[in-house]
């Protein structure tokens, strides 16, 4: 009598799928679904606005430069500021009323 052979051979893909599902149990059933595609349609980081973008680019360019030293004198919080503590105004804007 011939032995009954189990014919089902698990394909390597299915083995890999089982591995993935074990690591990420929350993975959706439809892999090519709209979530994956929509992520594909929008590639790259999203910035808050153009200012945010330009700051990020400047930061990338100046990565090698050291950061400017922080002002040592505490203007607020530590003590009540006097006029000498405050930074000088660089330009004096003439009031239109004065002209």
């Amino acid at each position: 009598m011939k032995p009954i052979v189990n014919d089902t051979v698990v394909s390597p893909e299915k083995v890999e799928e089982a591995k993935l599902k074990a690591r990420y149990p929350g993975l959706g059933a439809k892999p090519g679904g709209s979530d994956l595609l929509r992520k594909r349609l929008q590639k790259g980081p999203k910035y808050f606005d153009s200012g945010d973008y330009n700051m990020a680019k400047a930061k990338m360019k100046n990565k090698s430069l050291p950061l400017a030293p922080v002002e040592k004198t505490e203007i607020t919080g530590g003590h009540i500021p006097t006029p000498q503590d405050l930074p000088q105004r660089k330009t004096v804007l003439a009031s239109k009323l004065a002209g």
Partner: protein
Amino acid sequence: MVSDIISTVEFNYSGELLATGDKGGRVVIFQHEQESKNRPHLRGEYNVYSTFQSHEPEFDYLKSLEIEEKINKIRWLQQQNAAHFLLSTNDKTIKLWKISERDKRAEGYNLKDEDGRLRDPFRITSLRVPVLMPMDLMVEASPRRIFANAHTYHINSISVNSDHETYLSADDLRINLWHLEITDRSFNIVDIKPANMEELTEVITAAECHPHQCNVFVYSSSKGTIRLCDMRAGALCDRHSKFFEEPEDPSSRSFFSEIISSISDVKFSHSGRYMMTRDYLSVKVWDLNMENRPVETYQVHEYLRSKLCSLYENDCIFDKFECCWNGSDSAIMTGSYNNFFRMFDRNTRRDITLEASRESSKPRATLKPRKVSTGGKRKKDEISVDSLDFNKKILHTAWHPKDNVIAVAATNNLYIFQDKIN
């Protein structure tokens, strides 16, 4: 440097020029030097001919997203006069560049000096005719047309039509037809955007014009299908003329099936009778007259099928490999990982794996075939699947239109290999 990563490689129609585009938006063109008379057994080399900045990064204010300057594709126009023309595109804007040579300069102007300073008109007592004098060769690239603001999504393909007047550009959801002379409008010929984006099931991955029939083009999808469209059928080619899809074995379907079936490149054969598609693990050749299955299938790196889980986790499963035909359509080539690339001979069914790296090849040396061991026992000179470097991907390759010369882009290095002339 990241900006040096080569993102596209393309020979022109004669094979005399080879253009590369990179992530930093630059285009570098190489020219084939004439064979030297002293050493006729060696083919001439390719040397740098012209370099220019094609695209700059931009900011999309409406969507608050950066528009990368990376050159996605370069396509040459057929040469019609002394100048060369090419189209280069990033995600949003296509540009037509004119590359021209200048080897003469006018000397002896009446109103200005040799260094350009204006002469005092009262001191000019006689007139002379300027003479054209030879000068060192200067190659200039100038943008002649800018085709902008026609793509909401990211451009993946451009293809020049055989009529030499029009070309198509394709993004994830739409394909537009342009006239090379007209930049302020284009015709939308394919639109697969669903009314409700939640219903999106597939995107356009590549498109190409037929090499001889100017009314025919094809586009491939992320679901592994190819649609052939005839522009004579209607203004909008949403309904295909032919639909190519290989039937799938439902029992072997897995989570990865659709992802690895996504077609990353489609190329017509030079003859126009066949087309080739590249999906993650294989290259398929289709007869345009047979829609239900490919006529040839070549496995590129089947050993990766048992690594799909980790390739999904490190995103390599989404890598977009290109493929190309040789001039006579008898061989095809595509890239793989670990700086390996594969060539298949369609007639003999022989295939070879070669490596593009400085360590493995000295200039003028013959490339040694490589082999990846899949079983337990690894033979000497073989490399095991787990030792493959998945950061060293060969996504872009090009084959000279006539000769056995190939260009292979390995990250930020360009390799040019030639057949030995016996």
